């Protein structure tokens, strides 16, 4: 049986809207920041638009987070982080979307879903969502063969042939999960080499029913009512070929959730938040952590590291009377 998920709803009348620190986002970065600020005895509210957990919620198994030698499911790992943040007093509000951030005197206002929260410092850990590839057929076949969540939709493809687009850690890990159900997985990677962990590559190469098309671009997803095939182009020879599949699972990068920060803190051209090494953004009192930042390595461990630094920087900022930032 899947672990029973218990949400933390907004505390309607009783929930506070004033805090020392408001954390936006309940993935590993935000939850780690919450553990640290709560242990600094700073009043902490964490806002999460759905349920806490972030991207690991859609990850079957996590094998590279230290301390779990046998691996742990993504949802169990983040459930533990959430319990830990709650234990130290973080007030967690789930199912509340953040729509805007403003500054009012020395307070920062975070608003959305009909509520307003005020804090001395804010940690933005709002993460990212799977990126769409914008190839013909992608939009049309969502729910008809195109999926961004193998753990959600994998069982519908029992004994069928599917493709996984993107051979980073996510693509390889979820491809491994899919192999428990499907007949075959064709992995398509745009780059000449896979970027996911070598151990995953080795395991998958040993499995029956796997094909790897490296240096290939997905150019179309086709079918009548449901996905029947994809077309890929060999980037070296330019040759195109069709691969018959019933499902296409897309793990080809992410885009950041930063709409509510537009005009407030400096963002990169593709929307990620710029920070310094102390996780300070261009806006005093606003810190950022995890996948939402401009950075190269996006792992659960590095998200936790960012969360730690952002929390302690926020704590220092509040302690120093907001003179830094």
């Amino acid at each position, binding site marked *: 049986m899947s672990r029973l998920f218990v*949400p933390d709803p907004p505390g309607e009348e009783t929930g506070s809207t004033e805090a020392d620190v408001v954390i936006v986002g309940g993935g590993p970065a935000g939850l780690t920041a919450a553990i640290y600020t709560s242990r600094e005895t700073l009043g902490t509210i964490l806002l999460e638009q759905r349920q806490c957990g972030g991207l690991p919620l*859609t990850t079957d198994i996590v094998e590279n987070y230290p301390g779990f030698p046998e691996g742990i499911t993504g949802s169990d790992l983040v459930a533990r982080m959430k319990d830990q943040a709650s234990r130290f007093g973080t007030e967690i509000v789930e199912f509340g979307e953040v729509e805007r951030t403003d500054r009012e005197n020395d307070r920062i206002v975070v608003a959305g879903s009909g509520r307003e929260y005020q804090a001395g410092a804010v940690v933005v850990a709002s993460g990212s969502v799977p990126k769409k590839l914008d190839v013909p057929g992608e939009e049309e076949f969502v*729910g008809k063969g195109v999926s961004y969540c193998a753990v959600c939709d994998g069982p519908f493809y029992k004994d069928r042939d599917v493709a996984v687009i993107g051979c980073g850690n996510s693509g390889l890990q979820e491809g491994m999960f899919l192999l428990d159900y499907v007949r075959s997985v064709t992995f398509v990677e745009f780059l000449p080499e896979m970027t996911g962990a070598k151990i995953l590559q080795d395991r998958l190469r040993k499995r029956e029913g796997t094909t790897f098309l490296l240096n290939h671009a997905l150019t179309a997803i086709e079918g009548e009512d449901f996905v029947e095939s994809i077309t890929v182009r060999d980037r070296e020879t330019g040759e195109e070929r069709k691969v018959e599949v019933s499902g296409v699972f897309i793990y080809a990068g992410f885009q950041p959730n930063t709409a509510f920060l537009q005009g407030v803190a400096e963002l990169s051209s593709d929307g990620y938040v710029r920070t310094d090494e102390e996780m300070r953004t261009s806006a005093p009192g606003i810190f950022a952590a995890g996948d939402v930042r401009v950075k190269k390595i996006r792992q659960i461990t590095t998200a936790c590291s960012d969360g730690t630094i952002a929390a302690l920087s926020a704590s220092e900022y509040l302690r120093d009377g907001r003179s830094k930032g």
Partner: protein
Amino acid sequence: MALLSERDAQVVREQLSQLQKKIEIRAYLQKINCDSCPDAEAILKELSGLSDMLEVRLLNPQIEGEEAEADSVDRVPTIVVSDGENSRARFIGTPSGYEFSSLLATIIETGTEKTSLNEKSADFLGGLEDDLDIKVFVTPNCPYCPGSAVLAHRMAIASPRVTSEVIEANEFMDLSGKYEVRGVPRTVVNDRIFVEGALPEDQMIEALDKALAEGSEEQVNLMELLQADQGE
């Protein structure tokens, strides 16, 4: 072994303390030919110990035939959430994983006087001239599913014109096949209006309103309807 940690059990107790009226959960289960019934039973037994306002009745549709018929039960497990009068929201399959949160939200919505829907949705439901039968296909490991599941159930609880079923798609592949489920959440209204993915409440109501106003008998994809509007 307890299914919920002590902390989770405490959160559930606090949430159930909002209940203003007694809630009866009629769980139709059977010992044979139902792999998931033991899990459903364990979940509901655990839940029933967390509030005096909650009564869980375990029923066998073969034995308690009359009640099963009154609840239109045609498969197990079927879990009907009722305040005695209103029994329009139900789960077909085991509410484990993320769907446990949907079950909890449904119990609270049924057992409190105030709707959690916004004014626009309430207006839409108040103006309904036809009945709506909503089916939401979910899987327990889908973090996006409770949004769609709970919205459908809230609509059913708020309006006597709406009935809703949240269906565990893996457990009932025959229904998943019939309703062409290849991804979750998939919401199907009156067997012809559908949407893939979790639409926010405002968009769901707006699109549903348009789809019903068109009055056609054709299949309508709500997402396409919304995108067409944006393109205008």
